């Protein structure tokens, strides 16, 4: 009996030590530990996919948000972005050192193209937000058009751009405008559903000519979804 108790105690202590070591112990691979973006990190030839992310981020130019010390949103609930191979063809490093999600940015060059249907603009923006979501596991945390633009132009954990900040659809207030020069309305329904609406030809929201895509309900209080007014 004593032997069993001894073994059980030894196992328990072993598990506790292992967890504490994992949590607080020195890292043997510190180059892939949580890293603050220093703002002065320079590019070097990547050796691994995890290092690629760290090395690809460089100091932003003066007209972009400074790479300040960020905050883990929550110790337990922080949504971590995907680890990416930024050498993949869909990523391009700009002259200013920032990473451009080139496939999305190139698609967005057609935004507000008069040769295309207005609803295609919404599809393009929806696709851009979706691309952001696939990498960062959630929509941009944004209640305003400006905040969505900030997130898509690099104010995100990888400082990754999905749209060129000099895109003609972005106005001086840093808002994305539709082809009728009215800012789009971004409506965050959930972490993975963002409704995007254009006011349409009459430039008034809430009228029949508004342009938007009805997205299916994904989760949440779906039983009361219509009643929830979302």
């Amino acid at each position, binding site marked *: 009996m004593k032997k069993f108790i001894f073994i059980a105690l030894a196992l328990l202590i072993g598990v506790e030590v292992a*967890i504490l070591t*994992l*949590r607080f112990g020195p*890292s043997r*691979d510190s180059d*892939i*530990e*949580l*890293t*603050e*973006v220093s703002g002065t990190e320079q590019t070097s030839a990547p050796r691994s996919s*995890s290092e690629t*992310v760290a090395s690809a*981020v460089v100091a932003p130019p003066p007209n972009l*948000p400074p*790479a300040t*010390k*960020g*905050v*883990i*949103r*929550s*110790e*337990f*609930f922080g*949504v*971590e972005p995907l*680890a990416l191979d930024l050498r993949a063809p869909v990523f391009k490093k700009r002259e200013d050192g920032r990473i451009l999600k080139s496939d999305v940015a190139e698609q967005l060059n057609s935004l507000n193209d008069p040769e295309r249907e207005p609803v295609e603009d919404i599809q393009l923006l929806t696709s851009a937000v979706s691309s952001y979501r696939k990498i960062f596991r*959630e*929509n941009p*945390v*944004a*209640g*305003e058009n400006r*905040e969505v633009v*900030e*997130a898509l132009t690099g*104010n*995100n*954990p*990888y400082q990754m751009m999905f749209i060129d900040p000099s895109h003609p659809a972005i106005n001086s207030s840093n808002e994305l405008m539709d082809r009728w020069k009215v800012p789009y*309305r971004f*409506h*965050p*329904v*959930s*972490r993975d*559903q963002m409704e995007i609406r254009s006011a349409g030809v009459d430039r*008034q*929201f*809430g*009228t029949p000519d508004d342009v938007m895509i009805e997205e299916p309900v994904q989760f*949440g*209080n779906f*039983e*009361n979804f219509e*009643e*929830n*007014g*979302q």
Partner: protein
Amino acid sequence: MRNPNKKIEMSRRGFLARSACASMGVGGVVNTLAHMRLMEGALANTVTSVGDYKAAIVLFHFGATDSNNMLMPGSGHPARSNYENNRGVLALPLSSPGGTNDPHAIVADNLAADSAAAAGAENFALHPELGDLKTMFDDGELAFTANVGTLVVPTTAATYNSVPLPPQLFSHSDQQNQWQSSIPDRPFQSGWSGRIADLLNPAWNEPDGKISMSVSLSGINDNQVSLLGDVSQYSVTNNGAISLNGYGTNYANALSDASDPTSYEGNQNGRRLKAFQDIMNYTHDHLFEENYNVVVRRARQNEGFIGNAFSEANSWLHPSAVDNNGNPWGFIEGTFILQNGINPASANAINNVPSLSRQLISIAKMISGRNSLGNSRQLFFCSYGGHDTHQDQGGFSNGAGYVAGDLDDNMTTLNNALKAFNDVMKALASEPTLGGDFNYNDFILASHSDFNRTFTPNGSNPGSSGSDHAWGTNVYMMGGDVRGKNVYGYYPNLNPTGNWTTPGSSRGRWVPTSAVEQFSAPIAKWLGIADTEIGTIFPNLERFADPFTAGYDPTNFNSILSNANMDWISGV
């Protein structure tokens, strides 16, 4: 917007370490709750009387109400000039031509009595459609709490960019979920009402309770999700319990006596119902099959108990409301029909009552028929939507005058529902048969909302403009034990670019000065959660100031960090 320029790489080591610690943390809550539940259960024999009845009702405003216009600064309030100068077409004047749409002035006693409060800080005004709420406020039956919201840690505009924030601020679904869980920084596992039920059900409702402690009038909700899984939500519709389909109203086509579930008719429906119930009474080795049968059997039993409670409540007749057949309406339904301005003698009068009132009718019936249900502690959840007023909210301009919009409709619905419910509760307390030892202070109703809406409008047309997603919001509480005629918390100064709003925005998105758990903890305590157990229900509460400490400095909103002033329920 908070600057998220942080590269967060997660190694396998880091992931394992975090997962292990997170698992231990969650496991700790579960174990603590389970242990406390056993202790509560051991004490159950000491509390068995429905006479100790208490019911808490959460009313969720889905879609996010513009509470800037539900509770607005009144004449002489220090924030009034900011309200008028910055709210644009959404600013409602205290008096307008004709006077038919004027807000209702109220005075908060707690602020009037506080010598440290700024001059005029006690003067508020309620939305023009909330006339009955003004009366209830003035009568001490209703109070407000200003600027409540989801918080991970105490947060101000100055610390917004440097402290953990609730994930996905401004997103409907996430903020609804976090209000209901009150643990915004962890993946959802349970609601705060569900955790209360886990803890209180054994002591207060067993063995006499016949239905779940958690009853929802609004479908499955997050607030009542149990952590231990012992107290499942029971959904009741506006018409009562949900019956099995295909057997007629109240099983009239299959049973000769609705109160006897075995009084099968000798027809096809009767035989079919008998066969179905027999199958549901089988036991199965397979856990899923067995649990399916358990759920159906329990639902069928609950249906009968709910039906009994409704029958009991329906025996209480209204003295003046008569239906189109000349029969008196039940007191509860009649009260709501009249309050909503519906002719009780019109055809389908009850079907014209708005959904929120219908939900509160069902809750009032279950409170009235509580002896049939046997629970001494009952939690209800109800809701109404349509608050996401990005456009057509309603407003005012000198040219267009007062333009009623969706917010006006919502406030009318709310005013009538709360007034009728309050009237029924007061009447029940003095009703000789059903009232029994029910007291007016045996219920508390508290509101929730996704978040507040932006203070500045999104347009310049009072007819079509609206407001967008924001954060800290104003909520209300109603009931006999509510210290009414007070405004708790800290009302923002309404400067959309000042030190109350999220940095970088000029829309007026108030950083909450009280956390959801600070606001909700008094309800838990009122229901019977001990001081030592509050932290189990609200594990993040310890990060914030004690909500039960009296006295605060209303001139300094940062003092919320040291005092929450949430003593809004007497006796806790």
